[in-house]
Structures are given as C-alpha cells and as structure tokens.
C-alpha cells in the first residue's frame, strides 16, 4: 500500500483537526460555556480517518454519541460543528441537534446518534439505497464496544449478509462502554469474531495505527463496492477522555491513559513512521499543526460570537409540510 504525499498530508491534517477540536472542546467545556452532554473522540482518530479517507460524498457513514471525529473525517465543516456544539443558529444543525446529533447528509454523514447501536440499521438502508441507485456507494456504521452488544447491531449484520449490502460495520473497541469494561461486557475475545456467525469476514486491527486501519478499510470497502458484501472490522483503540465530559474516570487504571499516549498515540505513531521513512518532513507536520491550531481557535471565536436560535426557530423543520 502506498499513499501519495498529498494523501499522507490529508490524513495527518484530519487526525490533527480531530485531536485539536476535541482537546479544545474539553477545555471549553470545563469553563461551563458548552451546554449538554459531550463525548470526545480524542485517541481514536486513526479509525475515523483510516476509513473515511477511502470515501466520497456519495458514501454514507453513521456515527455514535462519540461522533465529532467521524464528522470531521467525513468532511463536515469545522466552524459549523463548533457552532452546533455551542448551540448557535449557524451550527451544522441550526443549533437543534448539538454534539450528539451532528449530521450533514450532503457530505454523506448520517448523524452522530444519541442511541447506542442505532446506526447499523440506518446504514443497511444507506447500503440498500446505493444498491438500488447503482451509484457504487458504500455505507459504514461505526459503533463502539457497547453498541456491538445491541440487538440492532447484530440484526443488521444478519440483514446485511442476507441482502448482500455494500456495508462495513466498524466496532471501535475503546475498552469501555461508559464505565463498563469490554473485557466484561463482550462475550467473546474479539468483537470481530462474531462476523463468522453472520457469514461475513471479520478483521481485528490496531486502531492506533492509521496505516493498518487504512489498509484493512480499503480492502473491505473495495469488496463492498464490487458487490462482495459486508465486513465487520474491530478497531482496538483507546479514548483519552471520559465517557462524557465530567466523567471522573475512577474506573480506569492508574496512568492507563498516560501509558497509551506515550506508547501508541496515533498521531505520534504516524509522525514517527512518515518522518523515519522520509515520506514527510517534521516541518510539514509542524506547519499543519500550526494551521490547525489557528483554525480551531478561529472556530471557537466564530461560535462564541454567533447568534443563538430565536423563538421563531422552535417550531420549524419538525415536518416537511404540516398544516
């Protein structure tokens, strides 16, 4: 597998955007200015980007409550996302969705989702639509280890095989469903082992390693596009923050996150590999870091200075038409 310089730069930029976005939302949440429930994706960037780098706007993804990373990876505009998280009228969803419901169908992003395991059935539908419309599109459902235990996910795996849908199911196993360890809540060693029961390939991949994810994703997406049916892929990875902002994370081991950050942070691994192999220079990466930092700073300023919805917005967009 070889990635062009521009693809490598794009991958790094996306992962850095997600990290910077999430770190900043974490800081801003602590100030009390961001309302509601927020679940951060920091640490898992290689998964969203490794998959979405293969996709175009016709391809669909469905995300989870931890959806910011998938949104950015799929091309949802950052200013709109930040405004949405601040509940502003110019947000991606006009301030009506918030962190858990960011969606942009024009970009093929069918929504973060407040219901664990809700995405896979929707993605079966997206795959079905692609089949009927013969547009060669694929559809990817991201779920967590928690979502992997939901009946909706298991039913969707069966349906995707029965209907031979161009779907990929990605189980992002970050070790915890809320505070409950996946070692306890998942009945088998690997979530991907369940694929065999549904007649599809199952693959386990190191979700910290962008290149490994990118390769596995590419194979599954190619097979799906060619009519070869669905795949279940488990990305084993870690989340750096709590289940939600405000989670004291007393269930985690001492220095658990620190050790992961030091040994297998996805951005660190990526940087090391591309610089050691002479694919990119540190200067190129530093330049992206600087640009992204400015971009996120600007998005926060933009969001904070943007207007909130008005009373006139409360009852709009409930229906397309309603007397």
């Amino acid at each position, binding site marked *: 597998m070889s990635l062009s310089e521009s693809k490598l730069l794009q991958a790094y930029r996306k992962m850095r955007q997600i990290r910077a976005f999430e770190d900043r939302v974490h800081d801003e949440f602590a100030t009390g200015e961001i309302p509601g429930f927020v679940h951060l994706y920091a640490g898992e960037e290689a998964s969203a980007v490794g998959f979405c780098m293969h996709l175009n706007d016709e391809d*669909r993804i*469905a995300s989870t409550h931890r959806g910011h990373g998938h949104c950015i990876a799929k091309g949802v505009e950052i200013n709109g996302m930040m405004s949405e998280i601040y509940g502003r009228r110019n*947000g*991606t*969803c*006009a*301030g*009506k*969705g918030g962190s858990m*419901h960011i*969606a*942009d*169908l*024009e970009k093929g992003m*069918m*929504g973060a*989702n*407040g*219901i664990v395991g*809700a995405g*896979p*059935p*929707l*993605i*079966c*539908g*997206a795959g*079905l*639509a*692609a089949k*009927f*419309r013969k547009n060669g599109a694929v*559809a990817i459902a991201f779920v967590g280890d928690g979502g992997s235990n939901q*009946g*909706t996910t298991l*039913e*969707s795996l*069966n*349906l995707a095989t*029965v*209907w031979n849908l161009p779907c990929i199911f990605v189980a992002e196993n970050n070790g915890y469903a809320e505070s409950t360890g996946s070692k306890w809540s998942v009945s088998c060693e690997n979530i991907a082992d369940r694929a065999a029961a549904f007649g599809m390939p199952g693959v386990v991949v190191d979700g910290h390693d962008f290149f490994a994810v990118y390769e596995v994703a590419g194979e599954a997406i190619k097979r799906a596009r060619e009519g070869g049916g669905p795949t279940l892929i488990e990305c084993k990875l870690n989340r750096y923050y709590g289940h939600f902002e405000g989670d004291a994370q007393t269930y985690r081991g001492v220095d658990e996150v620190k050790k992961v950050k030091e040994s297998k942070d996805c951005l660190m691994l990526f940087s090391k590999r591309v610089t050691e192999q002479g694919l990119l220079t540190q200067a190129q990466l530093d330049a992206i870091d600087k640009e992204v930092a400015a971009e996120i700073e600007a998005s926060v300023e933009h969001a904070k200075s943007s207007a909130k919805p008005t009373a006139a917005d409360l009852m*709009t*967009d*409930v*229906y*397309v*038409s*309603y*007397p």
Partner: protein
Amino acid sequence: MARELTFKDAINEALAQEMARDETVIAMGEDNVGGMGAEGEIDAWGGVLGVTKGLHAKVGDRIMDTPITESAFIGAAAGAAACGMRPVAELMFIDFMGVCFDQIFNQAAKFKYMFGGKAETPLVVRTMIGAGLRAASQHSQCLYPIFTHIPGLKVVIPSTPYDAKGLMIQSIRDNDPVIFCEHKSLYGLKGEVPEGSYAIPFNEANVVREGGDVTVVAIGMMVHKALEAATALAKEGIQCEVIDPRTTSPLDLDTIIESVENTGRLVVVDESNPRCSMAADISAQVTEQAFSSLKGPVRMVTAPHCPPPFSDVLEDLYIPSPEKIAEAVRTLK
C-alpha cells in the same frame, strides 16, 4: 356500475400504481413476497394476509422479503428514505412496535428537526391494527395514539377502500414519515374505488353522515360501528353527524369543531385503550377550544383499560359496540 374493490386490494393497487410511477418506491417486510429460500412458489404469501400479493410479478426485486428483524429493516427503511428512496416498510402488526420503536420515533421522526431541516425521510410504515379476529393481546391493539404523540410522524387510519387507496398514495408521495394503520377487520370490506390514481390530502376529515343533534367522531373500524349506531338512533329521532378524521396527525380539528358548534354535543369513539387515547385527545382539544358551544360533557367510547382478550365473549365486550355508542349519545339528549 362503479368498480368495487376490497380494502386490501385497494391498498395493493395503490402500491402497484405508485411503484410503477416512481422507481424510488420500494416495499419490504416479512413475507411481503413469501417463499424465499424455499422450494415452492415465489410470491407464495404476498404478506401474511395477502395485501402485497402479486406485486412481485409487477415490480420484481423492488418488493423485498426481510428476515424477522424489525429493528434492522424498519431502520433500514428509514436510512434508505434519508438516502433518496421512498420505502414502504411493513410492520406486520402494530403490536410489534416494541421491537423497533427506536428506529421510528428517535430516528426517522427526528432526522429533519435534529439535523436542522436538512434531512427528509419519506418513509411509510404500513401496519395492521385492531381487534376482532380473536388474535389476542399481542396482535390486536390500536396503538396509533402512541405514534400520534410523536412530533415528526404523520398517522393515517383509513376506514374505507376508497380512502385506503387515496391515503396510501398520499402517504407514499408525502415527504415526512407516515404510519399507515390498516384495520385487519376491514381487509375484506368492499367499496367503490376508482381505477385511476388519486391522492387524498392529509388533514381533511370526512363527514360520513350529516346530522344536527350530536357529533360523533370515530376512527378506523369505529366509523362503521358509529354509522350503525347513527342508523339506530335516527329511528329514535336523534340525528348524528359522524366524522372520520382519517388522519390523527395532522388532525383536522376545524371540521370537528365546526360540527360541535352546530350540535353542541360530542361523542368520540376510539378502539384504543382510554388513557392518552385519541378520544381523550380530541375531547381535550374540543373542550379547550369550543367549550362555550358544548351543551354537556364530551363522552368517550373506547376499549377498556385492559389488553385485548382472546375469548370471543371477552373480545366482544372489549371492542366498542354500536350499542355502547348509542348509549353514550342518548346520555347527551
């Protein structure tokens, strides 16, 4: 003489005509075709009670069988609707909503609002309602008030073959998610149905019988029970105006209130259980908006607050009867 069709065939014809007109219309459900993976004939069933029989020969793979997996395929229908298709998914019995409700009320119903107006979900969920076939507690309920409660959903309950065809065509063309409730006791009912395509707009109640003494609002199968009651009451000199709302969301309250302003009396007949029912809802809205027109309390005739029973003796007691409706009307005179 005008052509007659059964309620069931009227729905079938609406599906066939819309699927011929628009290639994005697809249908799916358990045994909607029937016979998949078996050695016998294809289209063996055409739905558990034969509503979709014969469509496979007309539209081929655009009508699909599903495994028994309501969460997955109702969700898939919602997802496909958000991706440019117009799916008609069959939730065999409305009683099965419990296994897939999230995909309807948290997903399909809310996409448009949650996503800031940028999503459209032209989904139709066809589903059987109602008692009368001794199908017992898990196959006989009228749970449409639960769907009516949900912002973002539209709820349609036809009472005649003519309405069934026209409302189904409107449901498919509508750009919002629609719950289309088919009373299983009406499937065999015959009535005049034009051969051509026609859509009946939502939010237009049908004044089924005119009368100046008492307004009787009745839904679905109850329209027929109310008409029976009205015929009996006419012999006693009481003239009922029977109104069929046809859709409970949106609800054509104007037509109901206009009638109540004339009669001053209202009976609402609803096969749902009484609490938080359409009867309770319509009573409350009329009381709030037309209190000064009322000459007496609004009467509700509903199923009792118990699950639908199996035994014929009990089920007959459970379903609102023309006698009970007439009794309620008489208390107002």
